[in-house]
Every structure is written in C-alpha cells, then in structure tokens.
C-alpha cells in the first residue's frame, strides 16, 4: 500500500472528489431523514394531519421516554431480542447442518427436494394455529415460528452455495487423493463462506419476520405485542414508538453481520 503523500497531485484531486461525493451522499441521507421528520412534525402541529392517527416525532420520543420509565421498554426489547436471536441461531445452524447433509448425499437431496419446495412456498403463518396448539402461547411458539420461517431459506441458500463449488477445484483435490470429507472441509465449506454471510443477512430479516409475526399471534410481551396492543387501543404513538425501536434493533443486528463479513472475508482485494 502506498502512503497518502506518495500520490501525485492529480490522484490527490481524484481522492478529494471521491471523498466530497461520499460526504454529499451522507449529508443528503440525513437531510431526507430530518426533513421528513420535520415535515411530519409541522403537519401534525398545524393540524393538517391528525396526529391521533398518524402520531408525530415529538410524541414518539416522549412515548419512548415513558415506555422506558413506566412500561419496562427494555423488558419488551429483551423478550423480542431473545426470541429473534434464538430463532436466528437455531435456523442458521440447523439450516447449515441440513444443507451439509443434502450436499453429502445426492440421494437424500433428490428424495427431500419436493418437500423443501412445498415447505418453501407454504406461507408459514398458516401453521400459526398448529404451532400454538403444539407449543402453547408463549415464547416457545414464537421461536418455533421464527425458526420455521428462517430455516427453509437458510437450507436452500446454503445448499446452492455448496453445489456451486467449481468442479475443476474438486477435480484438483481428487487428483491429490482427497476424500469426500476433505473436499468438504478444505474446499466446499471455506469456498462457500461468502454464501454463508449472505445467508446470515437473509436470516436476520427472516428471524425478525418470524418473531414479530409470532408475537402478533400469541404474546403478552415484546415489541410485536406492544405494536398489536397499541393498534387495538388506538394508541398510534405506542405503535410508532415500538416500530422505531424495532428498526433500530434490526439495523444493529444487520450491522453486526456486515461487520462479521469484513472480519471473515479478508482475502478479497
């Protein structure tokens, strides 16, 4: 790597242009957010929109404040986070393991293919009542829902990643005398690491869908519960506040995966 001061003036100019462009993009991003919030607030204050059904930023903030002080917001966050993370990890690990088995045995893959196709196209929410009967109406049912929604996509994504291994590289390993286990551990698994990261990213979204959907169906706590409850008693401030908190948590979880990607895939230029 060259140091900054080794570059020619022209390159310095180019770097500056790129940096300015990046700064503009960031400024515009924030501008949209702030303008949007301002507009929302002004429209609500002037009564052009009815803040009883649309809420408004200042009310959302005060609601979050009272949620923290009076309604145990962190408890609800904890409940949802627990369900989401558990659903996420179970779906990811089980999905990876099942994809490994399907990669290993072509027969197994062929036998199970139609089942996976059907499960994939089935709207999992339809199984809600069944899940409640089986797991009761607590966290268990919600985690089950999150796993169910996440695992199929995890399996399909990972299996496609495993199967996309370059046949020439497999041939190379076989010529060295590698057995199937070595092909798996030396080539297929490390080679599909980028797919694994994509799978994690997709699974973050799936886990949130699963846990919130589950909380809509059955729950006495959690952000999904707050949202449903807020809707039922027509407290739109509560609905919006819980949604904002949800947005923040989901973004943080996605960012954690993106960070992991930077750490794990360090061999690319």
């Amino acid at each position, binding site marked *: 790597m060259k140091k900054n001061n080794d570059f020619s003036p022209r390159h310095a100019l180019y770097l500056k242009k790129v940096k300015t462009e990046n700064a503009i993009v960031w400024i515009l991003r924030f501008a949209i957010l702030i303008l949007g919030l301002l507009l929302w607030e002004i429209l609500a204050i002037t009564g052009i929109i009815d803040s009883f059904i649309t809420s408004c930023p200042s009310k959302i903030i005060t609601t979050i404040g009272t949620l923290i002080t009076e309604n145990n917001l962190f408890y609800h966050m904890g409940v949802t986070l627990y369900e989401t993370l558990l659903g996420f990890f179970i779906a990811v690990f089980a999905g990876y393991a099942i994809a490994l088995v399907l990669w290993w045995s072509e027969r197994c893959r062929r036998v199970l293919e139609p089942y996976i196709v059907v499960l994939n196209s089935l709207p999992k929410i339809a199984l809600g009542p069944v899940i409640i009967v089986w797991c009761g109406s607590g966290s268990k049912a919600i985690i089950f829902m999150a796993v169910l929604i996440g695992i199929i996509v995890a399996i399909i994504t990972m299996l496609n990643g495993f199967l996309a291994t370059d046949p020439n590289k497999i041939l190379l390993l076989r010529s060295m*005398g590698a057995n199937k286990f070595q092909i798996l551990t030396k080539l297929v698994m490390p080679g599909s690491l980028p797919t694994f990261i994509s799978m994690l990213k997709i699974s973050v979204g799936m886990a949130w869908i699963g846990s919130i959907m589950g909380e809509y169906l059955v729950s006495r706590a959690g952000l999904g519960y707050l949202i449903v409850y807020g809707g039922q008693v027509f407290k739109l401030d509560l609905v919006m506040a819980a949604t904002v908190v949800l947005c923040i948590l989901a973004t943080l979880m996605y960012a954690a995966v993106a960070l992991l990607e930077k750490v794990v895939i360090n061999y690319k230029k």
Partner: protein
Amino acid sequence: MNKLLELKDVSFTYQTMTDEITAIENLTFSCDDGQFVSIIGPSGCGKTTILSLIAGLLQPTSGSISFEGKKLTGRNESLGYMLQKDQLFPWRTIEKNVLLPLEIKGKNTPENRKYALNLLEKYGLKDFIKNYPDQLSGGMRQRAALIRTLVSEPKLLLLDEPFSALDYQTRLSVCDDVYNIIKEEKKTTVLVTHDISEAISMSDIILVLTARPSKVKSVHKPQIKGDSPLRRRENPEFGSWFEKIWRELN
C-alpha cells in the same frame, strides 16, 4: 530407457441418459522418463478425459494403462495435476495453497514444508508467501500453481491447457517459465493443449488426435534446437512444423 507411462488400446465411453459418448477409442502411446509429451487435438475431442484416465480418476472402458511397469488400477499416487486457470484457493495464502497437497496426503511434516518453502524461494515467490492469490499477477499465480503440483514430488506432471486463460503476452512468458521449472526439476510431463505453437515449442513428442472418438492421428518429434520455448519459436524450423501440424488438424 524404461517406459514411465504406457497406454494400450485405451477406450473410454461416457454414459448419459440420452447418449453414449465414446470420447477415446483404442488410444495407444507411451512416454519415457524425463520426456515432455504434448497431446493436441480439437476441443471436445477427449483430451481432459485422457488425463483423468492417466490420473486414475476414471477407469478405461477397455484397454490398460501402466505406470512404472505396473498396471494402474486406482488413483495414480505419484502425479501432479495442473488445470486450466491456476485454481488457487482465494481464501488461502500462497504458502497455504502450496501446502495443500501435503495437507490432503497427511504429509504436512516440517521436512516437507521446508521442501515446499525452498521451492517457493528458488522460484522467486518467497516474498509473496503471506499474500493471497488475488494480490499476485497471472504469471506468478501460475508459477505458484506449478509449485503446488511439485511439493508432493510427483514422478509425472499432467498439464491440462494450463495457459489457456492467460493473455497472449503473459502466456508466452509463463510458458517459458513453466517449461524451465519443469526441466530444472527433471519432471516427466504430459501436456494437453489445442495451441499448436505451444505444443511445438515445448515438446519432445507431439501426439495429434483425431476428432471424437479420439485416436492418435500422428506422432511427431519436433526436437527443435533452442533451450527455451521462446527461442524455439524463433527457430526457422518452427514455421514448417507449425504448418505440418496445422494441416493435420484441419
């Protein structure tokens, strides 16, 4: 001299649901220790199949292959296979890539590692052992790929169109480079290619194959003077050999 490799009346047929593809029919040839043999033929004629047979990854439908006088039944243990493109694993450093065959064979001993590192040093890759393949030029990557095939001290090298992914300039120099290393390490080599110049400039023996099902159409021994492929390309004899083989292929 004893025959290192001998193919007798080898045929091979691929089975598919819709077709039976006879890739190779009654192929016979042999090669001595230390020779450089090129197999040249139109693409799709079965060249890669021949190498897979020699490597013992496929078994002939009929005929026999012997290696060092013994009939080959399973995988051929003492060869190095180099494929189209370098096939270096992008997530492994150059050093780890080169040690891969040792890991696979369970021979990753300090002694063998030292041998591998010596090869890397001898052929100018020492400063790059901690780099990832993406950080190296096409030529250096190819050299690393060759060293990877050499670390397990094979008796026979199989090269499957190893330069076809490179641009013309790089190709000429990499071809020289690979040839020199092979001669320095005194390895017997079977090269498969559809590039006539490459075959003429590198080989002691050239087998020209027919279109599928492949048979040996003719055998040539160009033996052009010159100590490297590039020099041989400059030799006046080169042109007439090129023309001769070109006519046979078309």
